[in-house]
């Protein structure tokens, strides 16, 4: 019987209420922190894109003769002659009102541009995260249980390949193998929706999952191995508990580092999409960001950076909160604050 089950109903409800209060307070503080970070990031990104080499006027007009009127019209349209800080404050005031501006490169509202791309990137990230989880965690657990044996060495070698192969090379290799030699997957593009898109996203997702899966596998192996070698497990074995129960105890204890690394790799996926989407010609957020940075399309770069930063912050908060669920010690500590 657990401690909670032994409690009286009144006592349990008080505990639940105080847990909710603690959660709300923690969340509130974290959210304020996130807002501050987003503000700093928005300023840094704006400054970096502003300082980066390149000229919006040349990017728009290309390498051909132009009239001074056309140059003046573009400079006026994008307020290029305003001082840097004025341009930043203009942007942030509009952003606070929910107006993220218009993409300079695509001549469309940023929200329209992003909404057309989010689906692909979200699907790609989810699929690759799923592939990484499904493959890496069991492999890590197995590897730890069979430490030093052939299967452990094989898994370690595979993770080494996944970690060290650059994602663009891996992507091209996968294309060559599974689109060309064994033509079961398409070579490029995002497909026409539904199952077709899933089919198109499989190779990119695997290319993206390889590196992050390798990290996750190593983290899982290390965490499970540490638990299997802990006093608690030795004691459990001494008590003659069945191996299944022992494995459960070890996995539960190892859950925190595994979830932390899973959260961490989810943030890596966001960066990885830039390369993978370019190689597989996928119209997602990654390829959009790459083009936008090169073009100095500040409104798009700002919106994507903030979106990604907010996503990473959310993932971090969710991971932190999950500790309360997994570890009674963390839960008790939070409640006693």
């Amino acid at each position, binding site marked *: 019987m657990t401690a909670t089950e032994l409690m009286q109903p009144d006592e349990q409800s008080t505990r639940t209420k105080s847990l909710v209060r603690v959660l709300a307070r923690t969340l509130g503080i974290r959210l304020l922190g996130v807002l501050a970070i987003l503000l700093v990031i928005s300023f840094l990104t704006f400054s970096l894109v502003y300082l980066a080499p390149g000229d919006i006027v040349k990017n728009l*007009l290309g390498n*051909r003769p132009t009239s001074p009127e056309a140059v003046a019209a*573009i400079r006026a349209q994008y307020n290029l002659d305003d001082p840097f800080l004025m341009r930043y404050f203009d942007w942030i005031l509009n952003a606070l009102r929910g107006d993220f501006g218009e993409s300079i490169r695509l001549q469309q509202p940023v929200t329209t541009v992003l909404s057309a791309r989010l689906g692909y990137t979200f699907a790609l990230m989810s699929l690759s995260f799923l592939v990484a989880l499904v493959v890496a965690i069991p492999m890590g657990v197995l590897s730890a249980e069979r430490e030093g044996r052939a299967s452990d060495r094989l898994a370690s070698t595979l993770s080494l390949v996944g970690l060290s192969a650059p994602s663009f090379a891996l992507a091209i290799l996968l294309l060559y193998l599974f*689109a060309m030699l064994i033509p079961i997957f398409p070579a490029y593009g995002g497909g026409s929706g539904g199952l077709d898109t899933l089919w198109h996203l499989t190779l990119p997702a695997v290319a993206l999952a390889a590196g992050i899966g390798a990290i996750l596998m190593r983290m899982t192996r290390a965490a499970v191995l540490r638990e299997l070698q802990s006093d608690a497990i030795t004691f459990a074995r001494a008590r003659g508990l069945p191996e299944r129960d022992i494995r459960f105890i070890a996995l539960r204890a190892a859950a925190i580092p595994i979830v932390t690394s899973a959260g961490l790799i989810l943030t890596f996926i966001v960066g990885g999409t830039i390369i993978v989407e*370019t*190689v597989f010609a996928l119209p997602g957020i990654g390829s959009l960001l790459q083009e936008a940075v090169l073009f100095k399309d500040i409104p798009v770069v700002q919106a994507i950076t903030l979106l990604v930063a907010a996503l990473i912050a959310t993932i971090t908060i969710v991971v932190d909160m999950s500790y309360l669920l997994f570890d009674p010690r963390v839960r008790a500590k939070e409640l006693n604050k």
Partner: protein
Amino acid sequence: MKTSSPPNKRTRRFFGVAIAATAALVLSACSSGASPAEDEAPADLVDSGQGIETVKVAFPGSLANLYIGQESGILNYYLAANVQEGLVSLDSEGKFVPGLATEWEMTDDSTYVFTVREDAKFHNGDTVTPEDIVFSIEQAADPVASPGTSFYLQGMASAEVTGDNEITVKTENPNASFLTNLSNVGALVVTQQAFWEEHDGKVGTSNSLLMGTGPYAVTEFSPDSHVVLDRVDTWWGEQPPVEQIRIDFIPDENTRLLAAQKGDIDIAFNVPLKQANSWQDISEGRVDAVNDLSYAGLLFDHEVAPFDDPNVRAAIATATDSEAIVEKLLHGYGEVATSIMTPESLSQVYDADAARDVLSNLPHHSFDMDRAKELLEDSSAADGFTTELTYPNTGPQLGTAAQSIAENMKQLGVTINVREVPIEEWLATIGDGEHGLGFMWYFSTTGDPAEVSSYLLGAGNDSHFDSAEAQRLIAESDAALDPADRVNILLQLEEENHKNTHTSPLWWGQSLTYFSNEIGIKDFSPFTFLGAWGPQLYAAE
């Protein structure tokens, strides 16, 4: 949970295949000694007369906007040529042919009168009115609505409807290249006024698409992904055999090659020179090379020392071994340029061979290291100097040429640091007042003989020099309405450039296009993709 020897074996086999595949990729990436197109026997294709459901085309980069007034890259022109028309067009030899105007005449030196085609319709079925055409001209000339094309119509005085099917356009001064500007290869792609106003001028985006009069209509556009052109039944010309043209944007060159090897691509534009061999090895297809009206040359900023000294400029031009660059580095896909004008740009006056004769007789800097040394010793930079030469990541051939020039200049005590930069950064270096030495890489769309030379030598040029003589010759050539007279004046302009080495021509380029052997194309020439090329495609057998 049960991993044992069988998966282990499978994994080993996988590794074997993987290593072999990697080796194959590395080999294909390294193999670069392609042979020029002349050595290749083009596939003997016959028109089967069959219709084609879809032709899949690969572009090496994405378009951001489909309206050439907004984004004016060469690929934008190629795409728009199937969808929108100007008053006139160019045929495969670069000569004017009717577009939306069936005929035209000059009533005086500055007045063009066009008779509008009566059977012209927009893709929505509405008849094209002279008012729509005048509206389109006005928008194309507006620097705010069309920053990409307004330059070309600066000299226009007025455009008016002067009859039921008649339009009169006047220029401020006699302007020999003006008719080109009223074609789809210049500044004019006719759209419907109602369509433009419905979208508040924001045409060519993924929401608004395009409204035109050509043989194909844009039915889908997703930037960084694809654009779909569907055949229409509103075009005045003969119904083309291809129903749909789907253009995919595939930026990674290895992915593009794999897709073609897999048979997913029927036509690929701008095959990279270094991959020419791999593309030619595709058994179901062929690679055709054609002069693409492009010009590559060295650009000097006359306000940046020591490039203000003509001897320094001449020394670099003389130390440049253009023949070796074209033969060894471009693998023969190009020609040594003796002038800024390409041979094709003289097509209104000379045929291809005669044009080459005329241009090769122009004075030019031949490769001569001893002479280059003398020139440098007679210059303000006799002790040598250090400079930077950047080239765009989309033009690796410029990079190899830069290395060759740097190697030769090193022997003369000049250090040239060659740096590859993204094309956006490279564009910003042109005429930035900091880079004394740079490349000019220009893809002409009009094929007009003065298009590039007036840009490089005229007022407000990126080299920051003012040459009264050059400007006089450009003005004179603009006013010379007889094509032969005009070319003669432009030849004098080339001599003037050579005398001062304002800028130094390197090569006239070629583009490589991959075609699946199931697809044929009629009249493949430097001008094909600048006209409605969809109807030129046929099912081959």
